[in-house]
């Protein structure tokens, strides 16, 4: 004898893929209209009060504000230079951060030197904050290395291309900080697309269970290549955290001050032994996914235009101007500095030598490996055979 199900037959559902179509507006609430979005500067550059987060930027001086502005402008200039270097054939590829300057500079400037950063492949602004020479970032896009800087030089890990992987490295690193009894923190960057990867969920689990001092900083730029965020989630991403036992917050990712405040709060939690935090910076990828991408295939110009009105740099400029924190000299000097940066980067890239052929065999292992030695020797003999033919 079995108990019959009481659930009566209902009309047939339409195919599953359709039912989420209507969610578009939910997941894409425009900044400013979402009560849950932390915002300290409106798109018009007006400073709005926030009971919870104001204290984290209470001490920010006009000079510091100008510093944030300068960071964003120089980062954007660097990014534009890289894009044009790609067009000139000097780089094989470039992943532009255009539009995400506030999210990166705001969070990057919240960090202490002893904190550690795990970036994706798009955190050029954070690298800038860490003091990584921007030309170093170009090596992998030029194809001369796979990320050549010393991660421990500036506590800025290498770019990670396999989506989501670095969130686990960040968690492990943070577990190590806790073991050491230090009060440093870790910040792990990832995208809205990455939020779907199992590794990211596992990093949430590990960091929560071990109460690791890590800030998960998700730049929701609305797109994972051609897929809008609705292909990854049907509720706002910051909400993901609570089911793992730690807080999540959505911040206006085009508001550098809000990003600074919220990241400071999250870092403070980490330092105080309160464990992980998820920050969702709600922003927009103004450009293509990379220089290989063609966004006209999948998104409308109007969307981009709407976001242009919320430009992170323009917003802070308006604020600086209406607050009389600047004079024309500042902007003019910055313009010159930008141009100089562009020139320096251009020259550095063009001068970047191709790696030695034997680099293939270098660093495969730290302690050596007989087969690598054997193949290196064969390669050398093979190369020499041409030299013989040609030269002798």
């Amino acid at each position, binding site marked *: 004898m079995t108990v019959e199900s009481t659930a009566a037959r209902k009309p047939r559902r339409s195919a599953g*893929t359709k039912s989420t179509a209507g969610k578009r507006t939910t997941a894409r609430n425009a900044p400013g209209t979402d009560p849950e979005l932390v915002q300290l500067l409106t798109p018009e550059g007006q400073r709005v009060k926030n009971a919870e987060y104001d204290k984290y930027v209470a001490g920010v001086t006009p000079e510091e504000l100008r510093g944030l502005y300068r960071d964003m402008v120089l980062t954007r200039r660097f990014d534009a230079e890289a894009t044009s270097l790609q067009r000139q054939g000097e780089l094989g*590829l470039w992943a532009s951060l255009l539009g995400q300057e506030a999210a990166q500079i705001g969070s990057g400037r919240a960090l202490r030197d002893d904190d550690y950063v795990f970036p994706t492949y798009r955190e050029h602004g954070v690298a800038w904050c860490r003091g990584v020479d921007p030309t170093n970032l170009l090596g992998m896009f030029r194809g001369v290395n*796979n990320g050549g800087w010393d991660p421990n030089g500036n506590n800025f890990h290498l770019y990670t291309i*396999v989506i989501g992987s670095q969130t686990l490295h960040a968690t492990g690193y943070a577990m190590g900080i806790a073991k050491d009894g230090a009060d440093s923190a870790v910040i792990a960057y990832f995208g809205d697309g990455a939020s779907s*990867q*199992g590794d990211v969920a596992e990093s949430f689990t590990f960091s929560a269970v071990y109460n690791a001092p890590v800030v998960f900083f998700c730049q929701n730029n609305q797109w*994972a290549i051609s897929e809008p965020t609705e292909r990854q989630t049907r509720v706002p991403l910051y909400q993901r955290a609570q089911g793992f036992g730690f807080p999540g917050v959505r911040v206006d990712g085009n508001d550098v001050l809000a990003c600074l405040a919220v990241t400071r709060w999250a870092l403070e939690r980490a330092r105080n032994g309160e464990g992980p935090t998820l920050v969702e910076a709600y922003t927009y990828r103004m450009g293509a996914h990379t220089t290989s991408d063609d966004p006209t295939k999948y998104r409308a110009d109007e969307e981009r235009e709407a976001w242009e009105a919320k430009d992170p740099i323009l917003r802070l400029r308006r604020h600086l101007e209406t607050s009389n924190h600047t004079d024309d000299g500042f902007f003019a000097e910055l313009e010159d500095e930008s141009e100089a940066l562009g020139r320096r980067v251009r020259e550095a890239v063009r001068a970047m030598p191709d790696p030695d052929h034997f*680099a293939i065999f270098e660093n495969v292992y730290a302690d050596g490996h007989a087969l690598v030695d054997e193949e290196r020797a064969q390669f050398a003999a093979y190369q020499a055979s041409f030299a013989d033919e040609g030269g002798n």
Partner: protein
Amino acid sequence: MAETFKAETSTSMALAKAINESLRRALETDPKVLVMGEDVGKLGGVFRVTDGLQKDFGESRVIDTPLAESGIVGTAIGLALRGYRPVVEIQFDGFVFPAYDQIVTQLAKMHARSLGKVKMPVVVRIPYGGGIGAVEHHSESPESLFAHVAGLKVVSPSNASDAYWMMQQAIQSDDPVIFFEPKRRYWDKGEVNTEAIPGELHKAQVAREGTDLTLAAYGPMVKLCLEAANAAAEEGKSLEVLDLRSVSPLDFDSIQASVEKTRRLVVVHEAPVFFGSGAEIAARITERCFYHLEAPVLRVGGYHAPYPPARLEEEYLPGLDRVLDAVDRALAY
């Protein structure tokens, strides 16, 4: 189909387009066929292999998935259990590893585990190999890691016609097929006869006949081997080129037949030589042809090193000179 047909139904098209047409035909013919993956919809995939398919077949047949490869393959398994025939795309070779567990422990073993009760007609499409100047993880050749796993079939076409027909056959197969697409040949054109009756999916084909030595390759390296055979011909050496087409199973009978004729074999692949396909071919052919071989089976492939940055890939990848060097060494025995 190494030979090309010039029938009325024959068209010249790029390899990527041939796969696109093949997917289109499968979607048209069998309502159970699905195309799934990251960016396969509006964008048509980063290589445009699925271009236009979502537009014509709708979002419920051509499915943009969340960014999670284990989820893609895992849900494809579930769809197959429900009677669908999913063709899933892994965006690049280096991104198949998050799905490796589902492929190896579930997809490959489900048929055996169920004592044959459950079929797994899933095709996993993987653009693979180097030579396109890409960043890390975008140029690898991991076919060994699938061929070693029982329950999977592993194939790789070298030309447009094979791409079209092998995809048809892979989709029709009730076994999971890992379909490695030679991405650097995506833009190479070839004649495709959409009416021709194709050869068996797992049979090798003689791409060029020869008598002095056999070059065996698959996917992107077939073209290189044909070039090498051309160059060698100018020096009076007659090389036979075998397009293996299938890595699991390997068509040892065809290799053996060729080697019994030429008595020398060089295997060429982009994947690292160490534990690569060349090892398996060398071991088994040496056993089968011990008294026929005049020289050891030589292997040309990648080094035991991570795929290098783009500016080094020419040195890393087998090129014309390295193939000819191996040919010379084999002929010198």
